[in-house]
């Protein structure tokens, strides 16, 4: 079975999925960022609800983002450590946009065709977006992740023809969507169930092992390296040593 985690957005979720990707038990909180407090209790609850133990778990999987940095790290650090201490379970990860795209492919709004464009809130009035198209039972990615300013979203989407959009970015900027975009009402926050299914189905970008299951930040840290050498002004962060 698969223990799946998804923490790239303000939604926090854990799921227990069968190896075919079907959901056995799931916990989702949309209440806002409290991943540190919610995630492991959710993991415990899905196992208990299903009457399963770690001996039944073959894979620990996490959504890799992009998304909000801190939440993303909590989910991925949790998955990495659970797999490490388990010693036997495989560690897997899938880009959050890829998991969302697979969910979009199954949405009723996608029945009439069109490309699939998951949108994740990137804060600062930007969204993380990628373009997929249906491919048999799965999806195929046809454009890499882009960081699209909210104000340019309508034009960016319109350039891609008829599309089905979803994700928390689509919900947040619903009023900015062009007529060519149909929002999938049932695909809002990315969830652990989507991650479990994406890993089970081999969605685009699935990776395995601790060398690869790491956050996809989609954006560099704000700090810019300063000119090295003595005498340069202290433009860096706080002084070294434990913070107050």
């Amino acid at each position: 079975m698969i223990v799946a985690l998804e923490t790239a957005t303000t939604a926090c979720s854990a799921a227990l999925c069968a190896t075919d990707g079907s959901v056995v038990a799931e916990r989702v909180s949309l209440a806002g960022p409290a991943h540190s407090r919610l995630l492991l209790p959710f993991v415990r609850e899905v196992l208990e609800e299903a009457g399963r133990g770690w001996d039944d778990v073959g894979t620990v999987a996490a959504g890799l983002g992009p998304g909000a940095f801190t939440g993303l790290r909590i989910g991925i650090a949790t998955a990495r450590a659970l797999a490490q201490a388990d010693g036997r379970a495989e560690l897997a990860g899938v880009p959050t946009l890829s998991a969302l795209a697979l969910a979009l492919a199954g949405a009723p709004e996608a029945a009439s065709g069109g490309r699939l464009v998951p949108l994740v809130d990137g804060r600062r009035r930007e969204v993380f977006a990628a373009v997929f198209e249906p491919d048999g039972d799965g999806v195929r990615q046809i454009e890499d992740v882009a960081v699209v300013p909210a104000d340019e979203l309508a034009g960016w989407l319109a350039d891609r023809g008829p599309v089905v959009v979803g994700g928390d970015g689509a919900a947040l900027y619903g009023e900015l969507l062009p007529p060519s975009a149909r929002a999938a009402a049932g695909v809002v926050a990315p969830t652990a169930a989507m991650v479990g299914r994406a890993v089970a189905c081999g969605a685009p970008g699935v990776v395995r092992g601790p060398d690869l299951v790491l956050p996809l930040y989609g954006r560099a840290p704000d700090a810019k390296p300063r000119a090295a050498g003595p005498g340069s002004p202290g433009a860096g962060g706080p002084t070294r040593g434990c913070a107050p």
Partner: protein
Amino acid sequence: MRTDLAEPGQAAPAGPILAVETSCDDTSSAVVHGREVLSSVVSSQDELHAQFGGVVPEVASRRHTELVNEVIAEAMSRAGVTWDDLAAVAVTQGPGLIGALLVGLATAKSVACRRRLPLIPVNHLQGHIAANYALGIEAPFICLVASGGHTLLAVVEEGVRYRVAAKTLDDAAGEAFDKGARLLGLGYPGGKELDRLAARGDPGFARFPRSMPRGRGFSFSGLKTALLYDLRDRDEAEVEAHRADIAASYQAAIVRQLVEKTVAGAQHEGLRSVAVAGGVAANSGLRAALTQACEAEGLRLSLPPLSLCTDNAGMIGLAAGFLPALPWPDYLDLDAFASDAEAKAARPPRTRRPERAPRPRRPRGA
């Protein structure tokens, strides 16, 4: 095994503790048994942050995520322990950089959860103080805690329980070293560079104010200003020629205050045992001056090796031996805290230290 050294009523988990510390820019893990550090691995991010001229929290958090599992594996391998040998997992809960703390906390909670081990959340400052227990010190003692974020005198009453006898009124000592290093145009990390330069300078070259704040608190912002004026009053060639002398004079002024206040604090509290903790305790000028002063005053000095002064998980494991262990699953919802003020909000009142040993481990699985 040295659990016989544990103080009465302070039942340390009977077996090795895996400790994790990621409160700032060093990723660290250790295995500690009683007062013995079986292994301590620190993956320093100094080089990474040097290009930014200071610790960038987001950069540190990213690096912790990449490193922490390997560092844990290395600590366990060096200690020769397996998951089945561990009695508990300890982790720094705060204070520190919140994003950095959360990586270590999520990791520690998760390994503990998977192995159904108890978790011991540790306050970073108590960790620094506890480093001295590796040297065989016995409470009560007075401890100078000095780092980039803290400068205080802790009266350690028992285990890692302490009372603050004095603290800084403005900058922390480590901050004073780092800011001084910047004014002197030294590289990063500043405190270390300043110490190295000061070693070949004349501490009597420049005169910095001897006066100290009234009362028992520390103050360093005046010294920093004095250094600024001193450098301004000299021409470039003179600064160039005497950079080491100015550094030595500045360092001596900081050290003088730390040493005098610490010795006075010990005398005021009637304590004969003095300890130091925190990154500033790695400063060679401080170590020499404090050794001399304690000898002169007949005080017993505990001076941890450098590896136990700077941030490390060994000290977290040592502190854990004195703290209550939360049994599975009581810690699954534990949160980190950035400051001591936030600590109270992070979780409802802590469970008191149990009178008895932590409950035996449950069977694994599930």
